[in-house]
């Protein structure tokens, strides 16, 4: 698969959240604000890329029968190392992201990519797949987080400067001042609602795109399928 195809898969066609429906637990638990979604997405991307590279490197050495435990040990080790390194050298960031990092171990998308892609692909492709899937996941989480935050607290990217540094303080916007907030959007039901709406939206867009692609091929307008 070429790089273009890999990115198309990761960002849209086979998006971790919106198409594979994996990693919904961290996706729904963390996305109470755009900043939280972004932070979780970035941390997951880092682990996803390194896990994919490692798995691709050892793919020929691992017996199919024991591959799952091997991958799990690798992923858990990586997550712990990321946790330790962030805690030691990027302590301020760790205080913001620390809560999410342990959740990454439970993210089945990472094992999913190791199993479905990286264990059968060359190292470079696996790394690209990790980046693409990670960006797709980050986008999905950020979008869900932003929508929930907008309806739930009336802000966008609140506390982004804690995550990205003071230079990104301009991202923090209050859309509706003195907004009471629809609390349900912050609570778990809000997560499910937003996810459901976005899934429906993606289906509609995909169906439209498919219809548009089909039309030039069948030039007659008999409309047999409608």
């Amino acid at each position, binding site marked *: 698969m070429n790089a273009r195809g890999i990115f198309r898969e990761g960002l849209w066609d086979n998006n971790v959240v919106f198409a594979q429906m994996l990693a919904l637990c961290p996706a729904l638990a963390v996305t109470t604000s755009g900043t939280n979604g972004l932070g979780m997405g970035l941390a997951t991307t880092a682990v996803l890329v390194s896990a994919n590279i490692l798995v691709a490197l050892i793919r020929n*050495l691992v017996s199919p029968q024991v591959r799952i435990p091997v991958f799990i040990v690798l992923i858990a080790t990586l997550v712990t190392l990321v946790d330790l390194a962030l805690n030691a*050298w990027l302590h301020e960031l760790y205080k913001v992201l620390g809560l999410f990092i342990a959740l990454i171990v439970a993210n089945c998308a990472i094992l999913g990519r190791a199993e479905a892609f990286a264990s059968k692909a060359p190292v470079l492709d696996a790394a690209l797949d990790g980046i693409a899937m990670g960006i797709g996941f980050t986008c999905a989480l950020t979008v869900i987080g932003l929508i929930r935050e907008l309806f739930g607290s009336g802000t966008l990217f609140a506390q982004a400067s*804690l995550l990205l540094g003071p230079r990104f303080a301009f991202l923090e916007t209050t859309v509706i001042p003195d907004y009471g907030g629809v609390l349900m959007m912050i609570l778990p039901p809000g997560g499910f609602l937003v996810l459901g709406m976005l899934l429906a939206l993606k289906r509609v867009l995909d169906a439209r795109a498919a219809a548009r692609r089909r039309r030039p091929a069948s030039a007659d307008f008999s409309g047999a399928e409608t």
Partner: protein
Amino acid sequence: MNATLAGLRDRLVYQGLSLGVVAMIAAAALALGNRLTHEAIGQAETADLASSLRQVLPAGMADNDLLADTVTVGAGPSQADAPPGGGSEPGLRARGANKVGAGGMKCPAAGTAPVTVHRARKAGVPTAAVFRMAERGYAGDIVVLMGVDTTGRLLGVRVVKHAETPGLGDKIEIAKAKWVLDFDGKSLGNPSAEKWAVKKDGGVFDQFAGATITPRAVVKAVKRGLEFFAAHREEIVK
């Protein structure tokens, strides 16, 4: 070459050995990672502690080094319950008063484990005490750091460690909400003992929508901390 590898991979011995090797490499990587980061994490946590000590003490209350002026209190003979899973030899209890028996990682939740109290002084006169209390929250222990003046009045409370649900329970952090400031100025008599609870339980402290267990645990920890201070006031203030 590839053929021999493929043949090897189907052998049970190879599978077991490869799993063992991977586990060993992972363990080595973790040990190395821990070694490399241990010191830096310790330093970062000490810096954190120093900055949170400053947060729970109003400016101008201390002119001494709080990190150095500590006393370890607790594990008194009054509490009879042995540590869980114990097999604790009597010698351990006897040494509890000095720092040797600090019991390492045990959180002070059991009421028997010793608590390290940082003492604030001004010109040598004790003005306040700062210590940690832990209480089981929704997900693991919530550790609060609390500053108490010599009369038992709360100067400030900060949650220094927790693993509560992001977006719901984490409003106990000062960075996320001003909720913990409600404790400032409170003491054991104000509000009265039965009012030391979240509003849902008939107390005076707000709970959060969607998270009651978390603030309940924090309130309980702070109340226990005040009781601890009252019980050991003579040992702490001197």
